[in-house]
């Protein structure tokens, strides 16, 4: 059993939901990333999604796009990100790390070279935004050879026929994008998320993470009632951006810890009283 599967199995036993934060590797500075990953673990996250900077992040909103630009100022490439994961693994062998990014850095490195290096460094899953199921049979094959989970996105507009296709390829978990648009958008329709998750579960027998639009304790709490995992990205990256020159560890740690409490509490009132 790999780290992602065992993490979800343990959470299910404790009847808890996963908290999955997203940060961009190398943002604001490559020297901070590994420390930030350890801070996230300390603040109670279950899986870390580590963004691979790309020059043209088409599916991301301005917040994550700027984080990519900050990292690229330091020339952080895919190979550097893999080294960061290896460094993180020197002290932490438990928390799964999922790389998230775009196709071209992987195309440039080559599927086989990437999968081998990522596996050796301790990467557990990879989500490539612009590899939809119909274009990635060979890619998935390489990942599975090294026991790395291919993570796929599903959206409110994904038709049922494609759910079957994703179910055949995906492992680890799937990531449901809870609204139309790019990362960092702010409206969230809980009823439609609830309905869609029922449909997804009838095809897909994997944990389902929900992301996009989760900005505070109340949205994190609400999503935790519906999904197996809560994914928080732009909100964390905003904190990193605003910390600018200062060390972002503390602010990010506080934010993530408050989300953790909101997810674990039976009711939202509990969260508010604790504060």
């Amino acid at each position, binding site marked *: 059993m790999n780290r992602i599967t065992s993490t979800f199995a343990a959470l299910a036993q404790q009847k808890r939901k996963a908290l999955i934060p997203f940060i961009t590797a190398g943002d604001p500075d490559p020297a901070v990333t590994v420390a930030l990953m350890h801070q996230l673990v300390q603040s109670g996250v279950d899986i870390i999604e580590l963004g691979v*900077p*790309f*020059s*043209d*992040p*088409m*599916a991301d*909103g*301005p917040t994550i*796009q700027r984080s990519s*630009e900050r990292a*690229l100022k330091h*020339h952080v*490439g*895919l*190979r550097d990100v893999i080294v960061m994961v290896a460094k993180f693994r020197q002290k932490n062998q438990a928390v799964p790390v999922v790389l998230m990014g*775009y*196709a*071209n*850095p*992987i*195309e*440039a*490195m080559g599927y086989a070279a990437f999968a081998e290096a990522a596996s050796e460094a301790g990467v557990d899953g990879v989500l490539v*935004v*612009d*590899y*939809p199921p*119909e*274009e990635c049979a060979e890619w998935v094959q390489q990942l599975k050879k090294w026991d790395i989970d291919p993570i*796929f*996105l*599903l*959206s409110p*507009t*994904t*038709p049922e026929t*494609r759910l079957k296709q994703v179910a055949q390829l995906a492992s680890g978990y799937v990531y449901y*994008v809870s609204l*139309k*648009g*790019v990362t960092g*958008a702010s409206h969230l329709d809980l009823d439609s998320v609830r309905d869609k998750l029922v449909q997804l579960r009838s095809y897909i027998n994997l944990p389902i993470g929900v992301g996009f639009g989760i900005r505070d304790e109340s949205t994190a709490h609400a999503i935790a009632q519906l999904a197996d995992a809560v994914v928080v990205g732009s909100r964390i990256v905003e904190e990193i951006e605003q910390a600018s020159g200062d060390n972002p560890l503390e602010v990010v740690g506080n934010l993530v810890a408050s989300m953790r409490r909101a997810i674990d509490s039976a009711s939202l009132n509990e969260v508010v009283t604790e504060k």
Partner: protein
Amino acid sequence: MKIYDLPDKHGHFGPYGGTFVAETLIAALNELCEHYERCRNDPIFQAEFSQELKHYVGRPSPVYHAKRWSEHLGGAQILLKREDLNHTGAHKINNTVGQALLARRMGKTRVIAETGAGQHGVASATVAARYGMECVVYMGSEDMRRQATNVYRMKLLGATVVPVESGSRTLKDALNEAMRDWVTNVENTYYIIGTVAGPHPYPMMVRDFQAVIGQEAKMQMQQDYDRQPDILIACVGGGSNAIGLFYPFVDDTGVRMIGVEAAGKGIGTHQHAATLVTGKPGVLHGNRTYLIQDENGQIVETHSISAGLDYPGVGPEHSWLKDCGRAEYVAVTDEEALSAFHALCRFEGIIPALESSHALAYAAKLAPTLGKDKLLLINLSGRGDKDMATVAEQSGIAL
């Protein structure tokens, strides 16, 4: 007989093309594929498209024999397919008319577009006005500076021009931003891509709409010269005018096809946009194709004197035509393009777009090496009025 039948039904040209997009765009692309497939096979749609090309765009555009320039060059005869004479002054309008008709059929009330030189933006704003649709054009702020007149033109036509400040603030960033708008507003919005790039079905669809260039040229050559040209030459940024001319000739293997990219300040300087000549295959903007990229797979900023060629990718069908050897791709510098620009002004009384001047520049190199009986057909894809400020600046003249 038709032999060449790419792309396959998933939009692949050999290893190139395809649908490399986020899940959030898949449903919109599927909807587009379905509607386009229906229109492609619908004689009523095709008749409507032809009528619009005739009465609104002003087609057919002539094939003009540039006699004085040919004589001066002293070799092959230079023929110009005059896309510069189209309404709005470039070939871009062929495609926007087609896509706007499709958008209308799909019940979309809002169209968006990306633009580099502003020609596609103007062509999109034009058809939006013509068919009564809202229009938003994304344009890199750097390009807005270089092409201020076209920005004003789009505004006159009722479009909103949104400056894009991310990345290199040029065409590729405008494309990213338009994609983001489309993902967010897909229900009422149609995205008019201006070149033969992007995810399937765009490379095929834009090619089909632009193929009128080559179809007309074939008939005109037969009529006026009783033979087909020896060589076709067209400039390649994304590659829509080149594909438009080449595609109807792909099976005519006696006709050489040459695409001319922008070598900018020189291939060795890294300040160029010669994707097929210098790039490596990768994935960008929804398709697999040649790209100008660094060793980490990051897309590199490009340079060309002509904003319309300043793009780090290229249409996937060109990547395929290069690999299978059917078409050749070369590059000419800013300086060579400028010199061809001036030559056409002086010898023929035609002010060409800087984009098209790249094709002219290569023709000027090639013609003297060939016999006087050879016919070179060059796609004069646009007129140069939009480039006055750039050319004046290069000559050290303040307007």
